């Protein structure tokens, strides 16, 4: 299926303090994507802003659309926790597929530096059910920590194996000029970092960040007119899950399993066909569970992939070779677009030192909450 493609991708620097207003931050990504696509604002039919609004601005789509000189073109906001970015891409795909629009700009943006870390942890904790879960002091690290504990009890996963995910992703973070963290961390650095929610330590966790991303999608005829290297959306799948206590497994996510079945089915590909993947490594454990949920390995064998360096460039299944959320930082609404940008650039062969040789099919795995929402998008050239 080569009906709708990506013609432009962009991303701001991800940082712990951007010192910009939200529309200014959005501009950084929009400009890069528009120049990448060689388009002007007149070419854009509609925009979708993806954000969880960790800053005072309400309805940011209006002020962003105005700042980018897109008014009076339609604009709307997608809030879907950490999956907002790819939900925006999915919605843009649907709007183009329906014939309503031809060219849609998806802009993910989040500014988190204006808030105290504990305040952000509390706001993020309200992604859970506020009555039954948040009221007990349940946080995002706590939710993933419970999954890590369950994997340790069931499969004998170790804290060192978790740390090796961060070793890999910090290695690639050093090669990503837009990452908030560009420092190689050793196994010792990670193992000795302070406990956040056992067994997860500080360096098992990604950091809040400021950042923006932009993905420009277009119908096939327009794609072919704009670029000789369109990257096509081959498959999309999404899913959701219940409150934490109503789940039957803490070693896998139903939302991801549901989404990936649909995405592989729609794209007509198998896990072995994927050349490069971006997975939602908000915590080290999240990347390991993703290896299994995406069927890159059998159940309980994720640790052997990281131990064998199979998810490095040159390995069997390169994952997060842009540093992942762990190195880039996680500006909630911008993350899905950043993942998309990396895969699009990989499929165009533009990644330089971290290029996966002859990558033809790439996968984005974007998860919201603690497996509450999942979008899988499969791209091909």
């Amino acid at each position, binding site marked *: 299926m080569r009906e709708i493609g990506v013609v432009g991708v962009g991303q701001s620097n991800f940082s712990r303090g951007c010192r910009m207003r939200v529309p200014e931050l959005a501009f950084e990504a929009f400009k890069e994507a528009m120049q990448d696509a060689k388009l002007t604002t007149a070419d854009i039919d509609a925009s979708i802003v993806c954000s969880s609004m960790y800053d005072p601005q309400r309805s940011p789509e209006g002020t962003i659309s105005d700042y980018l000189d897109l008014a009076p073109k339609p604009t709307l906001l997608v809030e879907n926790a950490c999956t907002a970015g790819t939900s925006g891409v999915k919605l843009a795909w649907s709007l183009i597929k329906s014939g309503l629009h031809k060219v849609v700009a998806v802009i993910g943006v989040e500014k988190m530096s204006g808030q105290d870390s*504990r305040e952000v942890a509390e706001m*993020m904790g309200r992604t859970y059910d506020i*009555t039954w879960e948040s*009221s*007990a*002091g349940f946080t995002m690290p706590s939710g993933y*920590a419970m*999954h890590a504990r369950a994997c340790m009890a069931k499969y004998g996963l170790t804290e060192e194996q978790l740390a090796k995910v961060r070793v890999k992703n910090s290695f690639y973070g050093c090669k990503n000029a837009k990452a908030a963290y560009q420092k190689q961390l050793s196994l010792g650095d990670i193992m000795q970092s302070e406990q956040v929610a*056992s067994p997860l330590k500080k360096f098992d966790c990604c950091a809040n960040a400021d950042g923006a991303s932009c993905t420009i999608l277009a119908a096939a005829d327009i794609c072919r007119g704009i670029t000789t290297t369109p990257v096509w959306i081959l498959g999309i799948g999404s899913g959701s899950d219940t409150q934490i206590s109503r789940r039957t497994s803490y070693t896998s996510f139903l939302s991801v399993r549901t989404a990936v079945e649909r995405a592989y089915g729609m794209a007509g590909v198998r896990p072995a066909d994927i050349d490069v993947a971006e997975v939602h490594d908000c915590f080290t454990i999240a990347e390991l569970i993703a290896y299994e949920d995406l069927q890159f390995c059998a159940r309980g064998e994720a640790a052997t992939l990281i131990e064998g360096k199979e998810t490095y460039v040159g390995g069997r299944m390169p994952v997060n070779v842009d540093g992942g959320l762990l190195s880039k930082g996680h500006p909630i609404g911008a993350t899905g677009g950043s993942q998309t940008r990396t895969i699009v650039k990989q499929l165009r062969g533009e990644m330089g030192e971290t290029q996966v040789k002859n990558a033809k099919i790439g996968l984005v795995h974007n998860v919201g909450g603690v497996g509450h929402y999942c979008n899988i998008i499969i791209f091909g050239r």
Partner: protein
Amino acid sequence: MSENGSFEEFGIVHYTKDTKIPEFLKYLEDGKVMATRCKDCGLLYFPPKADCPKCFGNKVEWVEIKKPGKLLTYTVVNYGPAGFENRTPYVIGVAQFEDDIRALALMSDSIPQEDIRVGLNVRLTVKKNLPDYIVYNFEKV
């Protein structure tokens, strides 16, 4: 604080005032942790809910969770969100009870941390510290 128990007191931090099931708090004040069963189709819900999306019934009976269960997973939280800064470290877990009921709750402070492990036998109990809060938590059996 109301004398009959108000949902506003539920949770260490209170986010909820209005609900279709204020009875849950009354039971909690009596030391009982209750699930709901749909009177029409018999489905059991925990956390309790007034409405059954399976059969669209909205008549419930209250069922006490009495028997002990097993801890499925847990975490020791060392970095607390706003409202919990001074409570760390605290332990949150999920336990499995009879009739496929699972609950997420804080572990009682009386359980030594070195005793906490996956598979630990726990029961749901009520912890009251009014007017500050009332919660259900896990006690070691």
